[in-house]
Protein backbone atom coordinates (compact mmCIF):
# COMPACT_ATOMS: atom_id res chain seq x y z
CA UNK A 1 0.00 0.00 0.00
CA UNK A 2 1.23 3.47 -0.83
CA UNK A 3 0.24 5.42 2.25
CA UNK A 4 0.32 9.17 1.62
CA UNK A 5 0.45 11.25 4.77
CA UNK A 6 0.23 15.00 4.57
CA UNK A 7 -1.94 17.59 2.92
CA UNK A 8 -2.57 20.00 0.10
CA UNK A 9 -3.09 23.64 0.91
CA UNK A 10 -2.83 26.94 -0.92
CA UNK A 11 0.98 26.75 -0.90
CA UNK A 12 1.39 23.32 -2.44
CA UNK A 13 1.29 19.57 -1.96
CA UNK A 14 3.13 18.10 1.02
CA UNK A 15 3.02 14.34 1.25
CA UNK A 16 5.31 11.69 2.70
CA UNK A 17 4.66 8.38 1.00
CA UNK A 18 5.36 5.14 2.86
CA UNK A 19 5.25 2.01 0.74
CA UNK A 20 3.92 -0.48 3.27
CA UNK A 21 4.71 -3.43 0.98
CA UNK A 22 8.40 -2.50 1.32
CA UNK A 23 8.37 -1.25 4.92
CA UNK A 24 9.37 -3.94 7.42
CA UNK A 25 8.65 -1.85 10.51
CA UNK A 26 12.34 -1.76 11.55
CA UNK A 27 12.04 1.76 12.95
CA UNK A 28 15.27 3.16 11.45
CA UNK A 29 13.31 6.19 10.21
CA UNK A 30 12.01 6.86 13.71
CA UNK A 31 15.54 7.28 15.06
CA UNK A 32 16.87 9.04 11.94
CA UNK A 33 14.25 11.80 11.80
CA UNK A 34 15.23 14.86 13.84
CA UNK A 35 11.65 16.13 13.77
CA UNK A 36 9.92 13.10 15.27
CA UNK A 37 7.76 12.61 12.19
CA UNK A 38 7.63 8.81 12.24
CA UNK A 39 6.51 6.10 14.58
CA UNK A 40 5.98 2.38 14.15
CA UNK A 41 2.90 0.47 15.11
CA UNK A 42 0.00 -1.56 13.76
CA UNK A 43 -1.02 -0.65 10.23
CA UNK A 44 -4.03 1.61 10.80
CA UNK A 45 -5.32 1.04 7.28
CA UNK A 46 -4.97 -2.73 7.12
CA UNK A 47 -6.57 -4.45 10.14
CA UNK A 48 -5.35 -7.88 8.99
CA UNK A 49 -1.63 -7.03 8.72
CA UNK A 50 0.37 -8.46 11.61
CA UNK A 51 3.84 -6.91 11.07
CA UNK A 52 4.62 -3.45 12.36
CA UNK A 53 4.73 -0.59 9.89
CA UNK A 54 6.02 2.98 9.93
CA UNK A 55 3.45 5.78 9.92
CA UNK A 56 3.62 9.57 10.11
CA UNK A 57 2.44 10.53 13.59
CA UNK A 58 -1.02 12.01 13.96
CA UNK A 59 0.56 15.09 15.50
CA UNK A 60 2.80 15.78 12.49
CA UNK A 61 0.41 15.00 9.63
CA UNK A 62 -0.82 18.52 9.22
CA UNK A 63 2.51 20.31 9.62
CA UNK A 64 5.17 18.30 7.81
CA UNK A 65 5.93 21.24 5.53
CA UNK A 66 7.34 23.02 8.57
CA UNK A 67 8.77 20.05 10.46
CA UNK A 68 10.64 18.80 7.39
CA UNK A 69 11.89 22.25 6.33
CA UNK A 70 15.25 22.09 8.22
CA UNK A 71 16.18 18.96 6.19
CA UNK A 72 15.31 20.69 2.92
CA UNK A 73 17.63 23.63 2.32
CA UNK A 74 17.26 25.59 -0.94
CA UNK A 75 20.53 24.38 -2.44
CA UNK A 76 23.09 21.63 -1.83
CA UNK A 77 20.33 19.57 -0.37
CA UNK A 78 21.77 16.43 1.25
CA UNK A 79 19.86 13.14 1.23
CA UNK A 80 16.93 13.34 3.59
CA UNK A 81 17.79 11.46 6.82
CA UNK A 82 14.57 9.40 6.72
CA UNK A 83 15.04 8.41 3.08
CA UNK A 84 18.74 7.61 3.59
CA UNK A 85 18.04 5.54 6.72
CA UNK A 86 15.33 3.43 5.10
CA UNK A 87 17.05 0.27 3.84
CA UNK A 88 14.04 -1.13 1.98
CA UNK A 89 13.64 2.25 0.24
CA UNK A 90 10.04 2.66 1.36
CA UNK A 91 9.95 6.41 2.07
CA UNK A 92 9.59 9.26 -0.42
CA UNK A 93 8.61 12.92 -0.23
CA UNK A 94 6.41 14.74 -2.74
CA UNK A 95 8.13 18.12 -2.43
Amino acid at each position, binding site marked *: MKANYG*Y*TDGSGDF*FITIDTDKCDGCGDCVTACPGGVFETGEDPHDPFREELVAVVTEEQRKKIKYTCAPCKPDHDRPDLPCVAACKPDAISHSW
Partner: protein
Amino acid sequence: MSEKTVSETKEFWRWKEYRWHDESMDWKSAAIISAGVDIGSVSSQAVILLDGKLYAFSNQRTGFDSPESANNAITWAMENTGMSLDDIHYTVGTGYGRVNVPFADKAITEIACHARGGNMMYGNTVRTILDMGGQDCKAIRCDERGKVEAFLMNDKCAAGTGRGMEVFADLLSIPIEEVGDISLTVEEEPDPVSSTCVVFAKSEASALLREGWPKNKVLAAYCSAMAHRVVTLLERIDVVKDFAITGGIAKNRGIVSRIEGELKLKSLKTDYDSQIAGALGAALFGQALEKKRRK
Protein backbone atom coordinates in the same frame (compact mmCIF):
# COMPACT_ATOMS: atom_id res chain seq x y z
CA MET B 1 -33.66 51.05 20.92
CA SER B 2 -35.99 48.98 18.85
CA GLU B 3 -35.31 45.42 17.88
CA LYS B 4 -36.43 43.66 14.82
CA THR B 5 -37.95 40.27 15.43
CA VAL B 6 -35.70 37.70 13.89
CA SER B 7 -37.64 35.97 11.16
CA GLU B 8 -37.47 32.20 11.14
CA THR B 9 -33.96 31.24 10.12
CA LYS B 10 -33.76 28.78 7.35
CA GLU B 11 -30.83 26.40 7.31
CA PHE B 12 -30.22 25.71 3.67
CA TRP B 13 -27.36 23.36 4.41
CA ARG B 14 -29.50 21.05 6.52
CA TRP B 15 -30.25 17.76 4.83
CA LYS B 16 -32.85 15.24 5.89
CA GLU B 17 -31.88 12.49 8.29
CA TYR B 18 -33.27 9.04 7.65
CA ARG B 19 -33.21 5.36 8.57
CA TRP B 20 -34.14 2.12 6.83
CA HIS B 21 -34.43 -1.55 7.59
CA ASP B 22 -35.35 -4.58 5.53
CA GLU B 23 -38.61 -5.93 6.95
CA SER B 24 -38.36 -9.12 4.94
CA MET B 25 -35.31 -10.23 6.93
CA ASP B 26 -35.37 -11.85 10.36
CA TRP B 27 -32.37 -10.99 12.50
CA LYS B 28 -33.11 -13.78 14.96
CA SER B 29 -32.10 -16.40 12.43
CA ALA B 30 -28.76 -14.79 11.57
CA ALA B 31 -25.56 -16.52 12.69
CA ILE B 32 -23.46 -13.36 12.77
CA ILE B 33 -24.88 -9.90 13.42
CA SER B 34 -22.27 -7.21 12.88
CA ALA B 35 -22.50 -3.44 13.04
CA GLY B 36 -20.45 -0.55 11.73
CA VAL B 37 -20.67 2.93 13.16
CA ASP B 38 -19.10 5.79 11.22
CA ILE B 39 -18.85 8.96 13.29
CA GLY B 40 -17.88 11.57 10.75
CA SER B 41 -17.21 15.23 11.27
CA VAL B 42 -20.65 16.13 9.93
CA SER B 43 -22.77 13.00 9.69
CA SER B 44 -22.95 9.71 11.58
CA GLN B 45 -24.08 6.44 10.09
CA ALA B 46 -24.78 3.06 11.61
CA VAL B 47 -25.11 -0.08 9.51
CA ILE B 48 -26.26 -3.52 10.70
CA LEU B 49 -25.45 -6.63 8.67
CA LEU B 50 -26.96 -10.09 9.03
CA ASP B 51 -24.37 -12.63 7.85
CA GLY B 52 -22.87 -9.98 5.61
CA LYS B 53 -26.18 -8.79 4.13
CA LEU B 54 -27.45 -5.27 4.65
CA TYR B 55 -30.28 -5.27 7.19
CA ALA B 56 -30.58 -1.75 8.57
CA PHE B 57 -28.93 1.66 8.53
CA SER B 58 -29.39 5.15 9.85
CA ASN B 59 -27.90 8.46 8.76
CA GLN B 60 -27.99 11.60 10.87
CA ARG B 61 -25.93 14.65 11.77
CA THR B 62 -23.10 14.27 14.26
CA GLY B 63 -23.56 16.16 17.50
CA PHE B 64 -20.78 17.71 19.54
CA ASP B 65 -20.61 14.62 21.70
CA SER B 66 -19.16 11.63 19.80
CA PRO B 67 -20.24 8.84 22.21
CA GLU B 68 -23.76 10.22 22.21
CA SER B 69 -23.82 10.47 18.41
CA ALA B 70 -22.66 6.86 18.20
CA ASN B 71 -25.42 5.75 20.58
CA ASN B 72 -28.03 7.73 18.69
CA ALA B 73 -26.93 6.32 15.35
CA ILE B 74 -27.06 2.66 16.40
CA THR B 75 -30.28 3.10 18.41
CA TRP B 76 -32.01 4.68 15.44
CA ALA B 77 -30.80 1.92 13.09
CA MET B 78 -32.28 -0.67 15.48
CA GLU B 79 -35.60 1.18 15.85
CA ASN B 80 -38.68 -1.03 15.31
CA THR B 81 -36.53 -4.11 14.78
CA GLY B 82 -36.74 -5.38 18.36
CA MET B 83 -32.97 -5.71 18.38
CA SER B 84 -30.82 -4.39 21.21
CA LEU B 85 -27.10 -3.64 21.48
CA ASP B 86 -26.53 -6.99 23.22
CA ASP B 87 -27.77 -8.86 20.15
CA ILE B 88 -24.94 -7.49 18.01
CA HIS B 89 -21.93 -9.79 18.03
CA TYR B 90 -19.26 -7.45 16.76
CA THR B 91 -19.21 -3.68 16.29
CA VAL B 92 -16.52 -1.70 14.51
CA GLY B 93 -16.19 2.06 14.90
CA THR B 94 -14.77 4.26 12.15
CA GLY B 95 -14.52 7.91 11.12
CA TYR B 96 -13.16 10.88 13.04
CA GLY B 97 -14.90 9.81 16.22
CA ARG B 98 -13.97 6.13 15.96
CA VAL B 99 -12.15 6.03 19.28
CA ASN B 100 -15.24 7.46 20.96
CA VAL B 101 -17.68 4.70 20.12
CA PRO B 102 -18.26 3.26 23.62
CA PHE B 103 -19.78 -0.05 22.52
CA ALA B 104 -17.33 -0.83 19.68
CA ASP B 105 -15.12 -3.93 19.80
CA LYS B 106 -12.53 -2.35 17.51
CA ALA B 107 -11.76 0.92 15.74
CA ILE B 108 -10.60 0.86 12.11
CA THR B 109 -9.65 3.89 10.00
CA GLU B 110 -12.18 5.23 7.52
CA ILE B 111 -9.69 4.67 4.67
CA ALA B 112 -9.81 0.90 5.14
CA CYS B 113 -13.57 0.97 5.73
CA HIS B 114 -14.39 3.02 2.64
CA ALA B 115 -12.38 0.68 0.43
CA ARG B 116 -14.18 -2.33 1.88
CA GLY B 117 -17.62 -0.72 1.80
CA GLY B 118 -17.07 0.66 -1.70
CA ASN B 119 -16.14 -2.83 -2.85
CA MET B 120 -19.54 -4.13 -1.73
CA MET B 121 -21.56 -1.13 -2.90
CA TYR B 122 -20.06 -0.79 -6.35
CA GLY B 123 -18.90 -4.36 -6.96
CA ASN B 124 -15.39 -5.77 -7.08
CA THR B 125 -14.43 -4.00 -10.31
CA VAL B 126 -14.03 -0.71 -8.45
CA ARG B 127 -10.35 0.32 -8.17
CA THR B 128 -10.47 4.01 -7.36
CA ILE B 129 -12.76 5.46 -4.71
CA LEU B 130 -13.12 9.12 -4.01
CA ASP B 131 -14.77 9.79 -0.67
CA MET B 132 -16.04 13.32 -0.39
CA GLY B 133 -16.95 13.73 3.21
CA GLY B 134 -18.21 16.55 5.35
CA GLN B 135 -14.84 18.01 6.23
CA ASP B 136 -12.26 15.97 4.39
CA CYS B 137 -11.62 14.32 1.10
CA LYS B 138 -10.02 10.92 0.56
CA ALA B 139 -8.70 9.30 -2.58
CA ILE B 140 -8.32 5.53 -2.27
CA ARG B 141 -7.10 2.90 -4.71
CA CYS B 142 -8.01 -0.68 -3.86
CA ASP B 143 -7.84 -4.20 -5.24
CA GLU B 144 -10.65 -6.61 -6.14
CA ARG B 145 -11.06 -7.65 -2.49
CA GLY B 146 -11.40 -4.06 -1.28
CA LYS B 147 -7.91 -3.96 0.22
CA VAL B 148 -6.26 -0.53 0.10
CA GLU B 149 -3.37 -0.20 -2.38
CA ALA B 150 -2.82 3.53 -2.11
CA PHE B 151 -4.53 6.36 -0.34
CA LEU B 152 -4.34 10.04 0.25
CA MET B 153 -6.40 12.18 2.53
CA ASN B 154 -6.74 15.92 2.76
CA ASP B 155 -8.28 17.13 5.97
CA LYS B 156 -6.38 20.34 6.39
CA CYS B 157 -8.51 22.38 4.06
CA ALA B 158 -12.27 22.41 3.49
CA ALA B 159 -12.06 22.98 -0.26
CA GLY B 160 -13.41 19.89 -1.96
CA THR B 161 -15.61 18.84 0.94
CA GLY B 162 -19.27 18.93 1.88
CA ARG B 163 -18.61 21.86 4.17
CA GLY B 164 -17.66 24.03 1.20
CA MET B 165 -20.92 23.15 -0.51
CA GLU B 166 -22.89 23.96 2.66
CA VAL B 167 -21.35 27.42 2.76
CA PHE B 168 -22.50 28.04 -0.80
CA ALA B 169 -25.98 26.67 -0.16
CA ASP B 170 -26.35 29.19 2.66
CA LEU B 171 -24.81 32.06 0.69
CA LEU B 172 -27.24 31.58 -2.18
CA SER B 173 -30.25 30.41 -0.09
CA ILE B 174 -30.58 27.23 -2.08
CA PRO B 175 -31.32 23.93 -0.28
CA ILE B 176 -28.23 21.71 -0.26
CA GLU B 177 -30.00 18.89 -2.11
CA GLU B 178 -30.64 21.19 -5.07
CA VAL B 179 -27.31 22.96 -5.55
CA GLY B 180 -25.86 20.31 -7.84
CA ASP B 181 -28.79 20.25 -10.23
CA ILE B 182 -29.06 24.03 -10.30
CA SER B 183 -25.36 24.36 -11.14
CA LEU B 184 -26.03 22.24 -14.23
CA THR B 185 -28.68 24.61 -15.59
CA VAL B 186 -26.10 27.08 -16.96
CA GLU B 187 -26.04 27.41 -20.74
CA GLU B 188 -22.32 27.92 -20.87
CA GLU B 189 -19.83 26.73 -18.27
CA PRO B 190 -18.21 29.80 -16.61
CA ASP B 191 -14.55 29.93 -15.58
CA PRO B 192 -14.07 28.32 -12.18
CA VAL B 193 -13.61 30.63 -9.19
CA SER B 194 -9.88 31.20 -8.78
CA SER B 195 -9.72 30.53 -5.05
CA THR B 196 -9.83 26.96 -3.84
CA CYS B 197 -10.09 28.09 -0.23
CA VAL B 198 -13.75 28.03 0.83
CA VAL B 199 -13.52 31.33 2.70
CA PHE B 200 -11.96 33.18 -0.24
CA ALA B 201 -14.17 31.40 -2.77
CA LYS B 202 -17.16 32.73 -0.84
CA SER B 203 -15.84 36.31 -1.01
CA GLU B 204 -15.17 35.84 -4.68
CA ALA B 205 -18.71 34.54 -5.21
CA SER B 206 -20.18 37.52 -3.32
CA ALA B 207 -18.31 39.81 -5.71
CA LEU B 208 -19.64 37.90 -8.72
CA LEU B 209 -23.20 38.20 -7.37
CA ARG B 210 -22.71 41.96 -7.06
CA GLU B 211 -21.58 42.02 -10.66
CA GLY B 212 -24.95 40.54 -11.51
CA TRP B 213 -24.09 36.89 -12.07
CA PRO B 214 -27.14 34.62 -11.62
CA LYS B 215 -27.03 32.04 -8.83
CA ASN B 216 -26.68 29.05 -11.14
CA LYS B 217 -23.62 30.56 -12.82
CA VAL B 218 -21.96 31.25 -9.46
CA LEU B 219 -22.66 27.68 -8.37
CA ALA B 220 -21.29 26.33 -11.64
CA ALA B 221 -18.10 28.35 -11.14
CA TYR B 222 -17.71 26.96 -7.62
CA CYS B 223 -18.57 23.37 -8.52
CA SER B 224 -16.00 23.29 -11.30
CA ALA B 225 -13.32 24.76 -9.00
CA MET B 226 -14.15 22.06 -6.45
CA ALA B 227 -14.08 19.30 -9.07
CA HIS B 228 -10.70 20.47 -10.32
CA ARG B 229 -9.39 20.51 -6.80
CA VAL B 230 -10.29 16.90 -6.04
CA VAL B 231 -9.11 15.69 -9.43
CA THR B 232 -5.59 16.95 -8.65
CA LEU B 233 -5.75 14.95 -5.41
CA LEU B 234 -6.93 11.86 -7.29
CA GLU B 235 -4.14 12.11 -9.83
CA ARG B 236 -1.55 11.68 -7.12
CA ILE B 237 -2.72 8.10 -6.49
CA ASP B 238 -3.25 7.31 -10.24
CA VAL B 239 -6.85 6.90 -11.26
CA VAL B 240 -7.55 3.35 -12.42
CA LYS B 241 -11.02 2.38 -13.61
CA ASP B 242 -13.60 1.53 -12.39
CA PHE B 243 -14.07 4.75 -10.53
CA ALA B 244 -16.67 5.50 -7.84
CA ILE B 245 -17.54 8.37 -5.52
CA THR B 246 -18.80 7.86 -1.98
CA GLY B 247 -19.93 10.28 0.70
CA GLY B 248 -22.55 12.99 0.68
CA ILE B 249 -21.19 14.82 -2.35
CA ALA B 250 -21.72 11.71 -4.49
CA LYS B 251 -25.37 12.83 -4.44
CA ASN B 252 -24.49 16.18 -5.97
CA ARG B 253 -24.78 15.75 -9.74
CA GLY B 254 -23.15 19.12 -10.38
CA ILE B 255 -19.89 17.99 -8.79
CA VAL B 256 -20.04 14.38 -9.97
CA SER B 257 -20.54 15.25 -13.64
CA ARG B 258 -17.74 17.83 -13.54
CA ILE B 259 -15.32 15.35 -11.95
CA GLU B 260 -16.30 12.79 -14.58
CA GLY B 261 -15.68 15.39 -17.27
CA GLU B 262 -12.20 16.22 -16.00
CA LEU B 263 -11.22 12.58 -15.55
CA LYS B 264 -12.92 11.57 -18.81
CA LEU B 265 -14.23 8.62 -16.85
CA LYS B 266 -17.77 7.77 -15.74
CA SER B 267 -18.35 6.92 -12.09
CA LEU B 268 -20.20 3.74 -11.11
CA LYS B 269 -23.80 3.90 -9.95
CA THR B 270 -25.18 2.00 -6.97
CA ASP B 271 -28.50 1.18 -5.33
CA TYR B 272 -26.93 1.70 -1.92
CA ASP B 273 -26.86 5.07 -0.19
CA SER B 274 -23.45 6.60 -0.96
CA GLN B 275 -23.18 8.04 2.56
CA ILE B 276 -23.11 4.66 4.31
CA ALA B 277 -19.92 3.40 2.59
CA GLY B 278 -17.72 3.85 5.68
CA ALA B 279 -20.17 2.28 8.13
CA LEU B 280 -20.87 -0.55 5.68
CA GLY B 281 -17.15 -1.29 5.39
CA ALA B 282 -16.83 -1.20 9.18
CA ALA B 283 -19.70 -3.68 9.54
CA LEU B 284 -18.08 -5.95 6.93
CA PHE B 285 -14.84 -5.90 8.94
CA GLY B 286 -16.94 -6.70 12.02
CA GLN B 287 -18.39 -9.70 10.22
CA ALA B 288 -14.90 -10.96 9.24
CA LEU B 289 -13.42 -10.33 12.68
CA GLU B 290 -16.28 -12.13 14.43
CA LYS B 291 -15.76 -15.12 12.14
CA LYS B 292 -12.08 -15.10 13.04
CA ARG B 293 -12.89 -14.84 16.75
CA ARG B 294 -15.17 -17.89 16.63
CA LYS B 295 -12.57 -20.09 14.93
